[in-house]
């Protein structure tokens, strides 16, 4: 099913549309209209050349995304970004979709509460979402329902809080956990006897 859709949308690679590559506003307006037709969402707007963005409700995102994917042809999920708006107590998830056909990027933004951060996955539509969602899960603690693999990956040896949250202060953590160099070494000793370890209190060099 997925493959069929891709085939339908995959233009012949050798037939390029030069006018599209230059990004004429006409195409972008068409896309906004197409999104509107397909999803009924009227909030998408042109932000910059080839950049369309708009807010989506978190519970409607998956529906919208699948409509965008299947009707308008945004086959490439460029990235999913997450922003921690601590003051508003919300996470903002930004889905960046790229259309190989229309050479245009759609950013769909959605907000979810920080405490019960949970989103349906889009990995059933875009396979790359597997990585992005796992990454956001690790770094922010957002749970993506339906993602088959949310195991720790990059931070597999980390047992602290999700580090990308704004309330995690990396500077304090580093000061608490790591030994910082004492900046008064005995340079004469170092030059003479070869550098061993600067062992702080009590340690003597060999």
């Amino acid at each position, binding site marked *: 099913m997925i493959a069929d859709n891709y085939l339908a949308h995959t233009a012949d690679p050798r037939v390029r549309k030069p006018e599209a590559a230059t990004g004429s506003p006409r195409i972008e307006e068409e896309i906004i209209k197409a999104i509107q037709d397909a999803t009924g969402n009227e909030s998408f707007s042109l932000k910059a050349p080839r950049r369309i963005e708009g807010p989506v409700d978190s519970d409607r995102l998956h529906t919208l995304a699948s409509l965008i994917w299947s009707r308008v042809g945004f086959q490439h999920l460029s990235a999913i970004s997450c922003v921690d708006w601590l003051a508003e107590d919300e996470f903002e998830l930004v889905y960046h979709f790229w259309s190989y056909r229309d050479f245009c990027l759609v950013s769909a933004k959605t907000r979810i509460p920080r405490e019960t951060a949970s989103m349906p996955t889009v990995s059933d539509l875009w396979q790359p979402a597997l990585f992005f969602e796992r990454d956001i899960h690790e770094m922010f603690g957002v749970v993506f329902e339906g993602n088959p693999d949310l195991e720790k990956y990059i931070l597999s040896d980390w047992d602290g809080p999700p580090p990308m949250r704004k309330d995690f202060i990396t*500077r304090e953590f580093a000061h608490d*956990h790591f*030994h910082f160099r004492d900046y008064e070494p005995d340079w004469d000793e170092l030059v003479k006897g*070869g550098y061993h*370890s600067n*062992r702080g209190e009590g*340690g003597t060099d*060999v």
Partner: protein
Amino acid sequence: MEKTITQRSAWDKVLTKLQKRSLWMLHYCTGCGAVELPPTMTARFDMERFGIMPMVTPRQADILLITGYLSVKTLKRVVLIYEQMQSPKYVVGFGSCTINGGMYWNSYATIKSLDQYIPVEFYLAGCMPRPEAIIEGFTELIDRIGEGKANSWEDYYKNYEFYRKNQEHVFGTIDTRTDIPDDAKYFKIGEVEK
């Protein structure tokens, strides 16, 4: 009982002179400094002139080059691999990040001072050190080995408790399957400090 530098026999000196001409470096790209190693190895700078070759497994390697920052996750592996290496072994800290954390001084993921966790023979400063600096460092190491001064590896056996404590502070207990204090007794390397 251990022979100090001055007590070395003439035979020992001769062999050390030969031995220092062969140094094998562990092929482990721990950090971004590793990108300067291929130029050092290959035609332009040609590390093999000094008998330095990259080696795959820790069993064969003499030099453990920590090429830049070490995340805690890598540090675990580095400790494992360091313990798997056969003494004498030399750790060379490469780049500012190994000395004081460099530009990652406030990162939650990287350690700030390599010599707290494994004994370091010397550091190469810079971000990142140029191939010339690496070669300079290696020739320095060769000289030190020839003079019998490059003995930092013994420090790990002698002060294992210290290193172990620091390691455990960062990542908890790991089982590297190498019993360092017992090895020190078995191979008669120094005295283990209580």
